[in-house]
């Protein structure tokens, strides 16, 4: 598998708002996180959603973010985290 990022690596979620069916949550766009798990490669749901084949497959990662870096007004513990599955084409190396 040709995943560009490794577990523990810092990544930056792309910002922006392309039209269509998007799996990257809006609240994580533009945020910086750490790769927690490399899930493998899967067909691209952004294309499957419109009846296409979604190939070639895209690497999918579980990425962990610090809540205090996601929400400006976060009032929980400073070490609290939130994780989400994000496809490689939504990530840049940081």
């Amino acid at each position, binding site marked *: 598998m040709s995943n560009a990022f490794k577990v523990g690596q810092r990544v930056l979620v792309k*910002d*922006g708002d392309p039209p269509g069916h998007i799996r990257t949550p*809006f609240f*994580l766009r533009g945020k910086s996180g750490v790769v927690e798990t490399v899930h493998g490669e899967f067909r691209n*749901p952004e294309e499957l959603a*419109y*009846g296409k084949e979604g190939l070639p497959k895209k690497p999918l990662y579980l990425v962990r973010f610090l809540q205090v870096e*996601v929400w400006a007004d976060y009032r929980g513990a400073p070490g609290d985290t939130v994780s989400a599955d994000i496809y490689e084409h939504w990530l840049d190396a940081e």
Partner: protein
Amino acid sequence: MRLMPGFHDLGGKDFGPVNQRDHVRSEWDNRVDAVLRLMLEGRRFRIDEVRRAIESLTERDYMSFSYYQKWLAAIRILIVEKELLSEDEIDARLDQLRQKAPV
């Protein structure tokens, strides 16, 4: 770039504490579940298409429909989109069933 998330992209909105009670599924819910499973297993459409169809509902419907009402609305959208049935055929069948239904 849009400054606001789509109305279906709810992460971070304040809906209060999570309701952790078990949901009770009605017979109607089970039927909708069965129809979707048949469509997926028969490869009539994919789960990603179902989600995309749900996101195409109006904000009002999205926020007021139950979980399975959203599924059924998406099933109808996709059945018409893929020309398995037309809107007219669905409406004609619904009229027929309404006439048969006990008052």
